[in-house]
Protein backbone atom coordinates (compact mmCIF):
# COMPACT_ATOMS: atom_id res chain seq x y z
CA UNK A 1 0.00 0.00 0.00
CA UNK A 2 1.34 3.39 -0.90
CA UNK A 3 0.59 6.26 1.44
CA UNK A 4 1.11 9.84 0.37
CA UNK A 5 2.21 12.36 2.94
CA UNK A 6 2.30 16.07 2.13
CA UNK A 7 5.03 17.71 4.12
CA UNK A 8 4.92 21.48 4.25
CA UNK A 9 8.42 22.89 3.85
CA UNK A 10 8.90 26.34 5.36
CA UNK A 11 12.16 28.34 4.96
CA UNK A 12 12.76 27.96 8.70
CA UNK A 13 12.50 24.17 8.49
CA UNK A 14 15.59 24.14 6.23
CA UNK A 15 17.75 26.06 8.70
CA UNK A 16 20.55 26.17 9.64
CA UNK A 17 22.13 26.03 6.21
CA UNK A 18 25.58 24.60 5.63
CA UNK A 19 28.14 27.46 5.26
CA UNK A 20 28.86 26.49 1.63
CA UNK A 21 25.13 26.45 0.81
CA UNK A 22 24.58 29.90 2.30
CA UNK A 23 27.59 31.26 0.42
CA UNK A 24 26.14 29.95 -2.87
CA UNK A 25 22.71 31.46 -2.14
CA UNK A 26 24.36 34.76 -1.16
CA UNK A 27 26.21 34.83 -4.48
CA UNK A 28 23.04 34.17 -6.45
CA UNK A 29 21.16 37.03 -4.74
CA UNK A 30 22.81 39.43 -7.25
CA UNK A 31 21.60 37.46 -10.26
CA UNK A 32 22.29 34.27 -12.17
CA UNK A 33 25.81 32.86 -12.24
CA UNK A 34 27.68 29.84 -13.59
CA UNK A 35 29.70 27.50 -11.39
CA UNK A 36 33.08 29.14 -11.86
CA UNK A 37 31.66 32.62 -11.14
CA UNK A 38 30.09 31.31 -7.92
CA UNK A 39 33.36 29.72 -6.88
CA UNK A 40 35.34 32.91 -7.55
CA UNK A 41 32.89 35.22 -5.80
CA UNK A 42 32.75 33.05 -2.71
CA UNK A 43 36.55 32.95 -2.53
CA UNK A 44 36.77 36.76 -2.98
CA UNK A 45 34.02 37.54 -0.46
CA UNK A 46 35.53 35.31 2.20
CA UNK A 47 39.09 36.45 1.41
CA UNK A 48 39.98 32.92 0.39
CA UNK A 49 38.74 31.34 3.62
CA UNK A 50 35.98 29.42 1.83
CA UNK A 51 37.15 27.75 -1.37
CA UNK A 52 34.53 25.59 -3.00
CA UNK A 53 35.88 22.69 -5.02
CA UNK A 54 33.96 21.40 -8.04
CA UNK A 55 32.54 18.40 -6.14
CA UNK A 56 31.41 20.47 -3.16
CA UNK A 57 29.96 23.18 -5.40
CA UNK A 58 28.02 20.96 -7.79
CA UNK A 59 26.96 18.62 -4.96
CA UNK A 60 25.47 21.62 -3.15
CA UNK A 61 23.89 22.95 -6.37
CA UNK A 62 22.31 19.55 -7.03
CA UNK A 63 20.72 19.59 -3.54
CA UNK A 64 19.60 23.19 -3.97
CA UNK A 65 17.99 22.35 -7.32
CA UNK A 66 16.25 19.32 -5.81
CA UNK A 67 14.86 21.32 -2.90
CA UNK A 68 13.69 24.12 -5.19
CA UNK A 69 15.93 26.86 -3.80
CA UNK A 70 17.77 27.28 -7.07
CA UNK A 71 16.79 26.76 -10.70
CA UNK A 72 18.70 26.50 -13.94
CA UNK A 73 18.80 29.65 -16.03
CA UNK A 74 19.89 28.08 -19.31
CA UNK A 75 23.24 27.73 -21.05
CA UNK A 76 25.30 30.39 -22.71
CA UNK A 77 28.90 31.49 -23.10
CA UNK A 78 30.51 33.92 -20.67
CA UNK A 79 32.02 36.70 -22.83
CA UNK A 80 34.63 37.52 -20.20
CA UNK A 81 36.03 34.00 -20.07
CA UNK A 82 35.87 32.06 -23.33
CA UNK A 83 33.36 30.85 -25.88
CA UNK A 84 32.48 27.69 -23.93
CA UNK A 85 28.80 27.32 -23.09
CA UNK A 86 28.14 27.36 -19.35
CA UNK A 87 25.15 26.39 -17.29
CA UNK A 88 23.73 29.27 -15.28
CA UNK A 89 21.91 29.02 -11.96
CA UNK A 90 19.53 31.47 -10.33
CA UNK A 91 17.71 31.82 -7.03
CA UNK A 92 14.01 30.95 -6.87
CA UNK A 93 11.57 33.01 -4.78
CA UNK A 94 11.62 30.26 -2.18
CA UNK A 95 15.44 30.24 -2.27
CA UNK A 96 15.45 33.97 -1.58
CA UNK A 97 13.13 33.46 1.40
CA UNK A 98 15.42 30.74 2.75
CA UNK A 99 18.51 32.97 2.29
CA UNK A 100 16.71 35.81 4.12
CA UNK A 101 15.67 33.49 6.95
CA UNK A 102 19.25 32.25 7.34
CA UNK A 103 20.59 35.83 7.30
CA UNK A 104 18.09 36.77 10.02
CA UNK A 105 19.12 33.75 12.07
CA UNK A 106 22.79 34.69 11.80
CA UNK A 107 21.97 38.32 12.60
CA UNK A 108 20.16 37.26 15.77
CA UNK A 109 23.18 35.21 16.78
CA UNK A 110 25.51 38.16 16.24
CA UNK A 111 23.17 40.41 18.26
CA UNK A 112 23.24 37.88 21.09
CA UNK A 113 27.04 37.78 20.94
CA UNK A 114 27.11 41.62 21.12
CA UNK A 115 24.80 41.65 24.12
CA UNK A 116 27.18 39.27 25.84
CA UNK A 117 30.05 41.61 24.84
CA UNK A 118 31.66 38.73 23.00
CA UNK A 119 32.28 41.13 20.11
CA UNK A 120 32.39 44.92 19.89
CA UNK A 121 29.45 47.22 19.11
CA UNK A 122 28.15 47.56 15.59
CA UNK A 123 30.30 49.97 13.58
CA UNK A 124 28.51 53.25 12.77
Amino acid at each position, binding site marked *: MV*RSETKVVTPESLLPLAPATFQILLTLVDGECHG*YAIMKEVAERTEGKVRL*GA*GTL*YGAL*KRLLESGLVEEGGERADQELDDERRRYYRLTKFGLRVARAEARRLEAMVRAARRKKLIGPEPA
Partner: protein
Amino acid sequence: MSSLMTSGADSPRPNARSRAEKIYRLLLHAYPSSFRADYGRDMTQLFRDQWREGSRNALHFWCTIAWDVAQSAPHLRLEAWRGRVQANTPTMGVIMKIISILTVLLGLFTALSAVGEVAAGSQQGALGTAYLLAIVLGAVAGGLLLTAGVAALRDTPSGRRTASRCAIASLVAFLVARLVFGWMSIFAQLVGIVLPIAIIVMLYRRRRAPEVA
Protein backbone atom coordinates in the same frame (compact mmCIF):
# COMPACT_ATOMS: atom_id res chain seq x y z
CA MET B 1 53.83 13.18 -14.43
CA SER B 2 56.56 15.81 -14.36
CA SER B 3 54.67 17.95 -16.87
CA LEU B 4 51.75 17.96 -14.48
CA MET B 5 53.87 19.66 -11.90
CA THR B 6 53.62 22.89 -13.88
CA SER B 7 50.03 24.03 -13.89
CA GLY B 8 48.23 27.14 -15.05
CA ALA B 9 48.53 29.58 -17.88
CA ASP B 10 52.31 29.70 -17.52
CA SER B 11 52.51 26.05 -18.49
CA PRO B 12 55.08 25.72 -21.25
CA ARG B 13 53.43 22.56 -22.60
CA PRO B 14 49.82 22.75 -23.83
CA ASN B 15 49.60 18.95 -23.56
CA ALA B 16 49.92 19.23 -19.81
CA ARG B 17 46.39 20.60 -19.53
CA SER B 18 44.81 17.79 -21.52
CA ARG B 19 46.77 15.22 -19.52
CA ALA B 20 45.67 16.82 -16.27
CA GLU B 21 42.11 16.86 -17.55
CA LYS B 22 42.35 13.13 -18.29
CA ILE B 23 43.48 12.49 -14.72
CA TYR B 24 40.63 14.63 -13.42
CA ARG B 25 38.14 12.71 -15.56
CA LEU B 26 39.44 9.51 -13.94
CA LEU B 27 38.97 11.06 -10.50
CA LEU B 28 35.37 11.86 -11.44
CA HIS B 29 34.67 8.11 -11.39
CA ALA B 30 34.62 8.42 -7.60
CA TYR B 31 31.21 10.10 -8.01
CA PRO B 32 27.94 8.25 -8.70
CA SER B 33 27.32 7.74 -12.42
CA SER B 34 24.06 9.75 -12.36
CA PHE B 35 25.85 12.72 -10.79
CA ARG B 36 28.67 12.37 -13.31
CA ALA B 37 26.16 12.36 -16.15
CA ASP B 38 24.51 15.54 -14.85
CA TYR B 39 27.54 17.53 -13.73
CA GLY B 40 30.64 15.80 -15.14
CA ARG B 41 30.94 18.23 -18.06
CA ASP B 42 30.49 21.29 -15.80
CA MET B 43 33.00 19.94 -13.29
CA THR B 44 35.60 19.33 -16.01
CA GLN B 45 34.96 22.85 -17.29
CA LEU B 46 35.49 24.19 -13.78
CA PHE B 47 38.68 22.17 -13.51
CA ARG B 48 39.91 23.77 -16.76
CA ASP B 49 39.09 27.21 -15.33
CA GLN B 50 41.03 26.45 -12.17
CA TRP B 51 43.92 25.15 -14.26
CA ARG B 52 43.89 28.29 -16.41
CA GLU B 53 43.80 30.43 -13.29
CA GLY B 54 47.00 28.74 -12.36
CA SER B 55 48.66 27.80 -9.14
CA ARG B 56 52.21 28.47 -8.13
CA ASN B 57 52.38 25.18 -6.39
CA ALA B 58 51.13 22.30 -8.55
CA LEU B 59 51.33 19.86 -5.65
CA HIS B 60 49.03 22.12 -3.64
CA PHE B 61 46.70 22.36 -6.65
CA TRP B 62 46.38 18.57 -6.96
CA CYS B 63 46.04 18.13 -3.19
CA THR B 64 43.12 20.61 -3.23
CA ILE B 65 41.48 18.72 -6.09
CA ALA B 66 41.97 15.33 -4.40
CA TRP B 67 40.70 16.69 -1.07
CA ASP B 68 37.56 18.03 -2.74
CA VAL B 69 36.88 14.65 -4.39
CA ALA B 70 37.56 12.78 -1.14
CA GLN B 71 35.24 15.11 0.75
CA SER B 72 32.30 15.26 -1.62
CA ALA B 73 32.23 11.90 -3.46
CA PRO B 74 31.40 9.60 -0.48
CA HIS B 75 28.58 11.94 0.56
CA LEU B 76 27.10 11.96 -2.95
CA ARG B 77 27.48 8.18 -3.23
CA LEU B 78 25.59 7.77 0.04
CA GLU B 79 22.84 10.08 -1.22
CA ALA B 80 22.59 8.11 -4.48
CA TRP B 81 22.40 4.84 -2.53
CA ARG B 82 19.63 6.24 -0.29
CA GLY B 83 17.76 7.32 -3.42
CA ARG B 84 18.00 3.82 -4.85
CA VAL B 85 16.76 2.25 -1.59
CA GLN B 86 13.76 4.61 -1.60
CA ALA B 87 13.06 3.82 -5.24
CA ASN B 88 13.16 0.09 -4.43
CA THR B 89 10.54 0.35 -1.69
CA PRO B 90 7.71 -0.88 -4.00
CA THR B 91 9.91 -3.94 -4.79
CA MET B 92 10.16 -4.60 -1.07
CA GLY B 93 6.37 -4.50 -0.94
CA VAL B 94 6.17 -7.20 -3.61
CA ILE B 95 8.71 -9.40 -1.76
CA MET B 96 6.70 -8.87 1.42
CA LYS B 97 3.56 -10.05 -0.36
CA ILE B 98 5.28 -13.17 -1.72
CA ILE B 99 6.66 -14.08 1.73
CA SER B 100 3.23 -13.47 3.28
CA ILE B 101 1.48 -15.75 0.77
CA LEU B 102 4.20 -18.39 1.28
CA THR B 103 3.71 -18.07 5.05
CA VAL B 104 -0.06 -18.55 4.73
CA LEU B 105 0.36 -21.67 2.57
CA LEU B 106 3.12 -23.23 4.65
CA GLY B 107 1.36 -22.33 7.91
CA LEU B 108 -1.76 -24.06 6.66
CA PHE B 109 0.29 -27.05 5.50
CA THR B 110 2.09 -27.31 8.89
CA ALA B 111 -1.15 -27.11 10.86
CA LEU B 112 -2.89 -29.68 8.62
CA SER B 113 0.04 -32.11 8.65
CA ALA B 114 0.12 -31.91 12.47
CA VAL B 115 -3.57 -32.80 12.58
CA GLY B 116 -2.87 -35.65 10.11
CA GLU B 117 -0.03 -36.90 12.35
CA VAL B 118 -2.34 -36.97 15.36
CA ALA B 119 -5.01 -38.85 13.41
CA ALA B 120 -2.53 -41.41 12.04
CA GLY B 121 -0.79 -41.82 15.43
CA SER B 122 -4.04 -42.30 17.36
CA GLN B 123 -5.21 -45.02 14.91
CA GLN B 124 -1.97 -46.93 15.51
CA GLY B 125 -2.01 -46.12 19.23
CA ALA B 126 1.59 -44.98 18.99
CA LEU B 127 1.37 -41.49 20.46
CA GLY B 128 3.95 -40.78 23.20
CA THR B 129 3.54 -37.74 25.44
CA ALA B 130 6.58 -35.90 23.98
CA TYR B 131 5.52 -36.73 20.44
CA LEU B 132 1.94 -35.56 21.08
CA LEU B 133 3.17 -32.33 22.72
CA ALA B 134 5.49 -31.68 19.76
CA ILE B 135 2.62 -32.22 17.32
CA VAL B 136 0.32 -29.88 19.28
CA LEU B 137 3.06 -27.23 19.41
CA GLY B 138 3.68 -27.75 15.70
CA ALA B 139 -0.01 -27.24 14.99
CA VAL B 140 -0.01 -24.07 17.14
CA ALA B 141 3.14 -22.82 15.33
CA GLY B 142 1.47 -23.52 11.98
CA GLY B 143 -1.70 -21.68 13.04
CA LEU B 144 0.31 -18.71 14.25
CA LEU B 145 2.32 -18.69 11.02
CA LEU B 146 -0.93 -18.72 9.05
CA THR B 147 -2.25 -15.76 11.10
CA ALA B 148 1.07 -13.91 10.63
CA GLY B 149 0.83 -14.38 6.86
CA VAL B 150 -2.80 -13.17 6.71
CA ALA B 151 -2.02 -10.16 8.94
CA ALA B 152 1.09 -9.28 6.91
CA LEU B 153 -0.96 -9.39 3.71
CA ARG B 154 -3.22 -6.65 5.09
CA ASP B 155 -0.13 -4.40 5.14
CA THR B 156 -1.54 -1.92 7.66
CA PRO B 157 0.30 -0.78 10.82
CA SER B 158 -1.96 -2.92 13.06
CA GLY B 159 -1.67 -5.85 10.62
CA ARG B 160 2.12 -5.58 10.66
CA ARG B 161 2.12 -5.49 14.47
CA THR B 162 -0.09 -8.61 14.68
CA ALA B 163 2.04 -10.35 12.04
CA SER B 164 5.30 -9.78 13.86
CA ARG B 165 3.81 -10.88 17.21
CA CYS B 166 2.39 -14.06 15.63
CA ALA B 167 5.68 -14.77 13.82
CA ILE B 168 7.63 -14.44 17.09
CA ALA B 169 5.11 -16.67 18.93
CA SER B 170 5.25 -19.21 16.11
CA LEU B 171 9.05 -19.27 16.26
CA VAL B 172 8.97 -19.82 20.03
CA ALA B 173 6.34 -22.60 19.73
CA PHE B 174 8.34 -24.31 17.04
CA LEU B 175 11.63 -24.11 19.00
CA VAL B 176 9.93 -25.60 22.07
CA ALA B 177 8.50 -28.40 19.87
CA ARG B 178 12.02 -28.99 18.50
CA LEU B 179 13.38 -29.28 22.08
CA VAL B 180 10.58 -31.62 23.19
CA PHE B 181 10.86 -33.91 20.18
CA GLY B 182 14.39 -34.19 18.78
CA TRP B 183 13.69 -35.67 15.36
CA MET B 184 12.40 -33.25 12.78
CA SER B 185 12.79 -33.10 9.00
CA ILE B 186 14.97 -30.38 7.44
CA PHE B 187 11.92 -29.09 5.57
CA ALA B 188 9.94 -28.73 8.82
CA GLN B 189 12.88 -26.90 10.43
CA LEU B 190 13.20 -24.58 7.45
CA VAL B 191 9.51 -23.75 7.59
CA GLY B 192 9.37 -23.43 11.36
CA ILE B 193 12.53 -21.38 11.89
CA VAL B 194 13.49 -19.58 8.66
CA LEU B 195 10.01 -18.42 7.63
CA PRO B 196 9.09 -16.58 10.89
CA ILE B 197 12.56 -14.98 10.94
CA ALA B 198 12.14 -13.91 7.30
CA ILE B 199 8.76 -12.37 8.01
CA ILE B 200 10.05 -10.55 11.12
CA VAL B 201 13.02 -9.14 9.14
CA MET B 202 10.77 -8.07 6.26
CA LEU B 203 8.30 -6.38 8.61
CA TYR B 204 11.16 -4.56 10.35
CA ARG B 205 12.58 -3.35 7.03
CA ARG B 206 9.13 -2.31 5.81
CA ARG B 207 8.64 -0.27 8.98
CA ARG B 208 12.03 1.45 8.56
CA ALA B 209 11.82 2.14 4.84
CA PRO B 210 10.10 5.42 4.01
CA GLU B 211 6.98 5.06 1.89
CA VAL B 212 7.20 6.89 -1.41
CA ALA B 213 4.16 8.81 -2.54
